[in-house]
């Protein structure tokens, strides 16, 4: 099973980009072995599906990247901060999946530079324009054997 987890709050403008990517993938690119989860924030119970996946791709907004830029980066488990019930990082979930279930799926974080986090359901123009590129990047990473380095 390949897993895509889109993170964000669609009521806070560009913050919703991760969820939008997940929604578009689920609507237009469904495949029998592809599971797509959209969530507000990461929570510890995601450890369970992650532990069953051969590949996990997280998609999230970035407040530090230039607006509209799309990047894929590897996740370093060694740098995972402690796992709390309220603030969980992708690396922490991967580390927990390894510790608890011995699962080591291939993984990546795709981040999309965001600029407007105010109330509203609309993406700002550069982020809206980045949406198809982010979807395409997820799809290319889902191709067998593509690794992010």
């Amino acid at each position: 099973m390949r897993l895509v987890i889109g993170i964000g709050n669609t009521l806070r403008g560009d913050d919703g980009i991760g969820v939008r990517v997940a929604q578009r993938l689920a609507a237009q690119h469904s495949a029998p072995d592809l599971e797509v989860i959209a969530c507000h924030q990461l929570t510890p119970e995601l450890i369970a599906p992650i532990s069953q996946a051969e590949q996990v791709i997280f998609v999230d907004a970035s407040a530090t990247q230039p607006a509209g830029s799309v990047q894929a980066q590897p996740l370093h488990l060694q740098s995972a901060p402690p796992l709390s019930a309220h603030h969980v990082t992708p690396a922490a979930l991967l580390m927990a999946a390894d510790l608890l279930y011995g699962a080591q799926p291939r993984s990546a974080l795709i981040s999309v530079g965001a600029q407007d986090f105010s109330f509203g359901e609309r993406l700002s123009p550069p982020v809206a324009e980045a949406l198809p590129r982010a979807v395409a990047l997820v799809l290319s990473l889902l191709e067998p054997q593509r690794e992010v380095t």
Partner: protein
Amino acid sequence: MSREITINPVTRIEGHGKITIYLADDGSVADAKFHVTQLRGFEKFAEGRPFHEMPSLMARICGICPVSHLIASAKACDALLGVRIPPTAAALRRVMNLAQIAQSHALSFFYLSAPDLLLGMDSDPSQRNLFGMLAANPQLARDGVTLRQTGQQIIEILGGKRIHPGWLVPGGVSEPLSAEKRDRILAMLPNAIAITQQAIHWFKSILPRFSEEISVFANFPTLHMGLVDRRGNLETYDGYLRIVDADGNVVEDRMTPEDYLDLIEEAVEPHSFLKSPYYKPRGYTDGMLRVGPLSRLLVADQISTPLANAELQAFRQIPERQSSFYYHLARLIEMLYAWEEIQRVLKTSDILSEHVRAYAEPNAFEGVGISEAPRGTLMHHYKIDKNGLITYVNLVIATGHNNLAMNAGVKQVAQRFVHGDRLSEGMLNRVEAVIRTFDPCLSCSTHAIGQMPLHIQLVAPNGEVLDEIAR
């Protein structure tokens, strides 16, 4: 010279809170207060909205227990419509409420409190978190993941989505259950039951290590309130309000939602945004109440499902069962009940009936809905005008009912563990841990923004802040 200690923010609870410990001249603890420092305002900004929006608006109060607010709100709206909802709709709402209680209890027990229980109150705070727990007892951590996920999946299967399902509507539910969905839920339950039983067994095995905490973690007589069914069984969705005293004597029984104003008065304290409800006939503060899993087990005569009932009867033999430390055990017993009861309800013959919604215009200007949320009795009270627009909302929240007891519990723990100017991590962690036994959810109780940390302050009689810990 007397002084003051502040714990700010209190960690591993839902919302923002702060604890102040006031020291007397001799360095002993004179008083302690739990402050809720966040304000929301849902009661006010719902005014003017059409009543049928209330379930989905009220669900937004909280990302932890949206289902509980949906249920109480939908029930208040049923009362406005003046309808009796179809039995299958009531059964389906019951299943969702139980799944909500179970997943919330799993969060509280396995994610928030298990680090203290497993690693000890004095353990290294950098290890006393979920990761430390994963390393120390991976099986317990896996069980926590599975149980929380089971509850979440049941909610998602029923409601279409996990955090803010829109399936509950005034008059019933929006869609019947399919056989396929029922079977998916039923397939998860045997494992959930087995794991919950293991967790109960594990918790009982570590109890001897916590005899000191048991003796002072809000271990005092109070009233207890919760719903029971017509036969006095534990009830979470519907039924009657019952209040018992510390000796188990029934003080109020067979009270309906409409009676809540005769039972509950809400006090406001200057140090907190969280109101302090109490049992009206006994006055403030003799009417101090507790609600939630511990109280529900203390008000019920028995539980209708066999495995949980056996645990309840064993629980009743525990001499210090008034101690709030036993909220943890009560949570596990209720989780067991939830899985068993979901199984029973889903196996009833008319659960797939397509008649799941009653339609009506408003027939009353006022409606009260009461259900049991994970943390205790939840009350939604609405008034509408002739156009169906909301003119008044009062929400009495589980964490509010527990406010007076939480404050008294913080004081009891501080008096036992905090001495003078020697502040240790373990002392302060116990002060936080007594709060965690109640599993307060401050987001809805104050109507809070954002996440949830807490903060301890040590204050001298002259008001000087001597020490402060913020995490």
